[in-house]
């Protein structure tokens, strides 16, 4: 299986987040819990759905990643833009809304 992680948006703030190993949600893709194991991926998705029910996040889904020199990168243009912000102006790039 390809390397995958879970992304979603925080319910209250709406910002893009990734599910980490510890079960928290981070704004930084590199802190995401990524796995090639389908069982682990499904487990992550279940944890995410529990957090939907707990009203922490909305719309979770799995994204495809590659790891280059220890850095996680999304495969698709769309997910690259979600991870780093709009490509249109340097000062529009993502800054964390929630520390």
């Amino acid at each position, binding site marked *: 299986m390809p390397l995958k992680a879970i992304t979603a*948006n925080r*319910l*209250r*703030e*709406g*910002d*893009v987040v990734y599910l980490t190993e510890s079960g928290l949600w981070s704004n930084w893709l590199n802190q995401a819990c990524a796995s090639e194991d389908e069982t682990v991926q499904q487990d992550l998705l279940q944890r995410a759905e529990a957090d*939907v029910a707990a*009203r922490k996040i*909305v*719309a979770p889904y799995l994204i495809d990643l590659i790891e280059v020199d220890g850095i996680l990168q999304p*495969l*698709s*243009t*769309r997910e690259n*833009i*979600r991870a780093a*912000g*709009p*490509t*249109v*102006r340097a000062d*529009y790039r*993502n800054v964390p*809304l929630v520390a």
Partner: protein
Amino acid sequence: MYRYDEFDHAFVQQRVAQFRGQVERRLAGELSEDEFKPLRLMNGLYLQLHAYMLRVAVPYGTLSSKQMRRLARIARDYDRGYGHFTTRQNIQYNWPKLAEVPDLLAELAEVEMHAIQTSGNCIRNVTADHFAGASADEIEDPRIYAEIIRQWSSLHPEFSFLPRKFKIAVTGAPNDRAAVRFHDIGLQIRRNEAGEVGFEVIVGGGQGRTPVIGVTIRKFLPKAHLLSYLEAILRVYNQLGRRDNLYKARIKILVQQTGAEVFTRLVEEEWDALKNGALTLPAEEIERIETYFAPPAFETLPAVNPAFEARRFEDRDFARWVRSNVSAHKADGYAIASISLKPEGGAPGDATAEQMEVVAELAEIYSFDEILISHEQNLVLPHVKLSDLPAVWDKLVKHELATPNIGLLTDMIACPGLDYCNLANARSIPVAQRISQRFSDLNRQHEIGDLKIKISGCINACGHHHVGHIGILGVDKKGEEFYQITLGGSADENAAVGKIVGPAFSYDDVVDAIDSIVATYLDRRQEDEKFNDTYARIGIAPFKEKLYAAA
């Protein structure tokens, strides 16, 4: 400008309180996302690629300085310091937080603004000519009727769950700047043979994945019957529009499938039953709304102003700006000044909070406190004295708002595209940025003349690519961004849908392709011939030959 009465105030405030309750229910878990989604959409709140996005209506594109300042404050306090003006005279904020949106809406309500019906399958913000009230070619101010339609369409009990979204545009001038043939309903103010003023009613236009030019179903509708006729159209559509297929649910498909003649008959039959009832507009009510849009107290001025002429003679940059960005006003000694939100390398339609405040100040001092938003994503100061134009320009220059490119190649429409939008297949804004850099030579742009390039990041066509002289449509090919080019479209009174020129171009090659098309045009045009005229005369083949010759 229209001012809210006590009922309008109560209406928007109650709506804010209602949404506040809905957000509380969502955050408390009483509403699921599936249940909450239609409620937030009815208040203009999307969940986009990066965050929530709030679309605020600018009814018929008209703002006071106070309202523009409030939009700036909201950009600063609730967002990241900028906003995006859209092709439907709305402004979008890209990063508001759900929990704060009720407060944001309350701030809007204080200045008589809202986000009601900027999304959802309902009647959307009614748009109008962006030179309304100022242009010399106007029969009547379309905003009088846009305001009347705004009232009638706000939370309409029968038409809040239509098969699909519904867009209405009104223009009062024969030169169509509101794209009335590309709306679900387009209203063109006309004078009949008896000299009475009424509406030509156009139905079933639209873009999206099936671009259609609207058809006239009534050549002349007396003013008093405006709302009963609209209600008849909407009632036919609400009952018969397709609900089984999202892509066939717009009224244009209903008109096509029933046939324009049958559709017209159904509307007229429904109208016969509604006519002369409670929806009839009393002449004194039309007059009452008209007074809100009465022309400001223009001074009696000579048509020529020496100081303005002198500056134009001395200052080539100013003269160039006047040539592209200043239009004829109906009053002598005044002009319409367009403010370009398309600087070289910029994101079309974006304005920072500081820029909004500068425009608010200029409007307050020089334009009777009035600002208009164009569907081409620019701002307009509608009533500037010729003698004030130099001062206005000087200030605009300081804030990167004086790009002299209105109507020219780099005055592109671009949707937010894959940089912001959940639906997009490809980026739009960076393509616009690269084109504007390639054609940054302003003298060359002025030499090329009027040329409309419009860019959409997906088939939904929010960037109006179908009606660009040159249209660019972003598509996804196996995970890569590609761009399909169309030629010959037009949104004005010569409405036309562009034709695909050939295979799509990669992100890297698309700017060269535009360059090639422009080169063919310059090479083949006769004297001052417009792009679409050259295209009509020589056809698509010469463009194609040059574009694909190297391949």
